[in-house]
């Protein structure tokens, strides 16, 4: 059984309090980092092969380095706690059960990038986690771990906890920034990139909750150790959110070398009733769907990619033989239509259209051109939009139809409008 790192405090009573957190070794990463050179911290994180765990999987240490050298502008550390990718719930657990891990991670990151003001953008629906997190932030202030001249180091760091108001697109880095600025959550045209010109016009680093929660461990136990836990291109363990047709849905912490098969069958008890696996979403609904013959892959940033999908937010949704894939596509298409921000034309117009088509197919009114229309429209829009939201929609649009085409065709054959 692999060592629990990110989840080490999850089942410990009161571990969300600073007292218990510290008793269990918490804030020792900050103790060390506060005496390190910012560049040294960044170097450690680079060597650790830590990748962004929110969905994009970008090397964290490299991302920090995008703030222009020599810039004296105030820079902001923004935590993306707007967890919204269907199938994902790991950040919620972290904030409810181990909020100080996030705060400590923020302190370390802030020191590394020279930030004195951090924002935690937490989705509005997460009310209980918000309360717990806010209490933890207050505890950190009370203990002198946040605010001005922290522990006499001369380092200032303030944290503002900011609740969202219900929009998946506010989980997109620049959509989040727009919303943080008090505007509607429209992602921003890039360039400029946030590290150059982000929140309130200043250099900004946006990191996921879980990514930051890894930092105390990297600092205390070393980059090499962290890198060694994983694969060649990605270090550490991560939290896999597993749901759908499994015996034990929930969080699985495992080194990133774990395979999808191991997660489903070893960690989560396989499929109830011994039914057969039909399909599995490996990285949140935006990831292309995988078939049973494609699950012997490591669940790092490269594994699902090798099968044309992505690890994304590591939200795993398991579908057994009873599932109608056209029905699943309709549900997913409805999600993208509802969450499209509407800013740019290809996404705004086609997410709604494709939902209408997929709904029509499920209702028994499909037409024989429908499948090729969806595929062609999706391909024409992919890569043309302001942000990757549409590419996330394209993942399911194309993979569900390409991998289960006969199921769709049967519905259409039997429809009144074929």
């Amino acid at each position, binding site marked *: 059984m692999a060592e629990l790192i990110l989840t080490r405090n999850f089942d410990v009573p009161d571990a969300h309090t600073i007292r218990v957190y510290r008793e269990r070794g918490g804030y020792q990463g900050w103790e060390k980092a506060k005496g390190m050179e910012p560049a040294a911290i960044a170097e450690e994180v680079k060597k650790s092969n830590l990748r962004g765990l929110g969905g994009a999987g970008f090397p964290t240490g490299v991302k920090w380095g995008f703030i222009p050298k020599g810039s004296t502008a105030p820079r902001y550390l923004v935590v993306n706690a707007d967890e919204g990718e269907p199938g994902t719930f790991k950040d919620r657990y972290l904030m409810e059960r181990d909020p100080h891990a996030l705060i400590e991670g923020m302190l370390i990151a802030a020191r590394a990038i020279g930030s004195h003001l951090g924002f935690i953008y937490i989705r509005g629906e997460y009310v209980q986690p918000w309360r717990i997190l806010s209490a933890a932030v207050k505890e950190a202030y009370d203990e002198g771990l946040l605010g001005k001249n922290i522990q006499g180091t001369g380092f200032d760091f303030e944290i503002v906890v900011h609740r969202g108001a219900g929009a998946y697109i506010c989980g997109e880095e620049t959509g989040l920034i727009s919303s943080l600025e008090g505007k509607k959550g429209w992602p921003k*045209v890039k360039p400029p990139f946030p590290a150059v010109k982000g929140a309130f016009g200043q250099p900004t680093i946006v990191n996921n909750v879980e990514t930051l929660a890894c930092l105390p461990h990297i600092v205390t136990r070393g980059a090499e150790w962290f890198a060694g836990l994983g694969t060649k291109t990605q270090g550490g363990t991560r939290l896999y959110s597993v749901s759908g047709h499994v015996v034990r849905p929930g969080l699985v912490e495992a080194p990133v070398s774990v395979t999808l098969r191991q997660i489903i069958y070893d960690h989560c008890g396989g499929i109830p009733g011994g039914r057969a696996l039909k399909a599995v979403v490996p990285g949140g609904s935006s990831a292309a769907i995988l078939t049973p013959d494609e699950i012997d892959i490591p669940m790092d940033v490269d594994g699902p990619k090798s099968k044309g999908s992505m690890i994304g937010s590591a939200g795993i949704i398991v579908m057994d033989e009873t599932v109608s894939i056209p029905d699943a596509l309709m549900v997913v298409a409805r999600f993208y239509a509802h969450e499209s*921000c*509407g800013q740019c034309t290809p996404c705004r117009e086609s*997410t*709604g259209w494709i939902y209408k088509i997929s709904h029509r197919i499920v209702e028994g009114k499909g037409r024989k051109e429908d499948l090729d229309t969806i595929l062609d429209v999706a391909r*024409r829009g992919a890569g043309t939009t302001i942000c990757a939201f549409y590419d996330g929609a394209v993942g399911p649009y194309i993979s569900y139809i390409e991998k289960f085409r006969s199921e769709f065709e049967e519905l259409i054959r039997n429809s009144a409008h074929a």
Partner: protein
Amino acid sequence: MPKLTVNGKEVEVPEGTNLIEAAKAAGAEVPHYCYHPALSIAGQCRLCMVDIDKVPRPQIACNTQATEGMVVHTETERVLETRRSMMEFHLINHPLDCPVCDQAGECFLQIYYMKHGLYDPRMVDEKVHKPKAVPIGPHVMLDAERCILCSRCVRFCDEITHTGELGIFQRGDQSEIGLFPGTALENKYSGNVIDICPVGALTDRDFRFQVRVWYLDTAKSVCNGCARGCNVEVHTNRHRPHHNQGRRVARLKPRFNAEVNQWWLCDEGRYGFKWMDDKSRLTHPLHRGGGEGAEVSWDRALPELVKRLQGCPPDEVGLLASPKMSNEDLWALRRLAEHLGVRNLDFRVPPSAPGDEDDFLIRADKNPNSRGAELIGVAPDPGGRDAAGILRAARERRLKLLWIFHHDLAASGWPEAEVLAAIENTETVIFQGTNANDVSARAHLGLPSAAYVETEGTFTNFQGRVQRFRTAIPPLGESWPDWMILSVVGKALGASDPVFSAERAEQVFNALAAAVPAFGGMTYRALGDAGRMVTA
């Protein structure tokens, strides 16, 4: 100044130039909706994609700056296919309103579909429905279904007028342009959103259903509503006189001039053309003999005018010129005054209320040529009377002839009673202007002026910029340009100045430029489309 290559052609552009402008400099058109040079970059329409060497995917041109050595392709197969895709996306929910939409003929969905689309539509599901034909302000009509959500109008209200009336509400394909409920698009520049809207979502209430744009002719001109002299295009309907309620001038549109009005026009200027086709236009000379005015020919009116002028001692003649007159008109008048020895010459009649002014385009002086009148010396000679003095002299029966140009004196800042008394107490009152008013009704001779759109000439704006206006339509009825009336009168009086034998406005202007140093060296050709500053 980076040098880049567009479609194989090398071009040098200023630092910070985006690729839409750089391509334009190289002679290539990059289709776009949301980009506008006056507004912030939105990057929303995704139509302006171009291929750039060493960049794997097409990039939007509006948000990409030209750099040294960049190699750009605007017509590759991939770019053309991307444009076709973007056209399809734009038309998915667009209502096919063309037969009833005013934008037809100047609609960029039509234009770009014909050029870059030409696919067979395959959307068979119900389109999204939104409010249609919603008046959102005194001048602007909104059709939210037609809107392609380019956000130009929203950005205009935020960045140019700073009034923020418009927003894009909801999200996804439910997104909708609109006002905060209970408000209206009431800023003084609201009509500009009609120009910048690429489609028929924001249309002109005044122009609605009047005439199809392909019947319109266009002439370059200058607004005469205030001293700014915003550059305009006059759009006229001559081919379908049964449309547009028979009015010849259909609408005014702003014309770009970086130094004067950029891309914009205020609403008052935009809609200030109704007088041109109004029933109150004077179309024939009028000779009032014993009560009713009778329409007469110029052959009758001119000798009458000359006779009355010859019968007046010069100090008993008052000339109230108007800063609505062109430089050419005013030059001819001044020359005539000199020939007659008349010293009572001025143009400064006070307005009934101070004009509104803002820190953008609108000037308090609601006349296009006050500066021209100053420079040309439309002022009393020493010993002569200014405008107020002329009015007083008329009231006190010390003038035998009062020649009023354009002014609606009874509606001016002078008390109406005094004006009417002045008219009453003067033996000969001549009114020369475009539209009838209370004073013209009482004048002994009424001379019909051609409207400025019916002739050509120049105005000098408050900055000292001399700008040409060109003939858009022939003069209404028997109206003549002011300078021509004055020229014929002068000739009949035996004046020899070249002005009095001019047959074209340009000749008058050339005479002006030769005589008044401020206009020195100017010619119509040199003025071009953007005008030139007077010599200080």
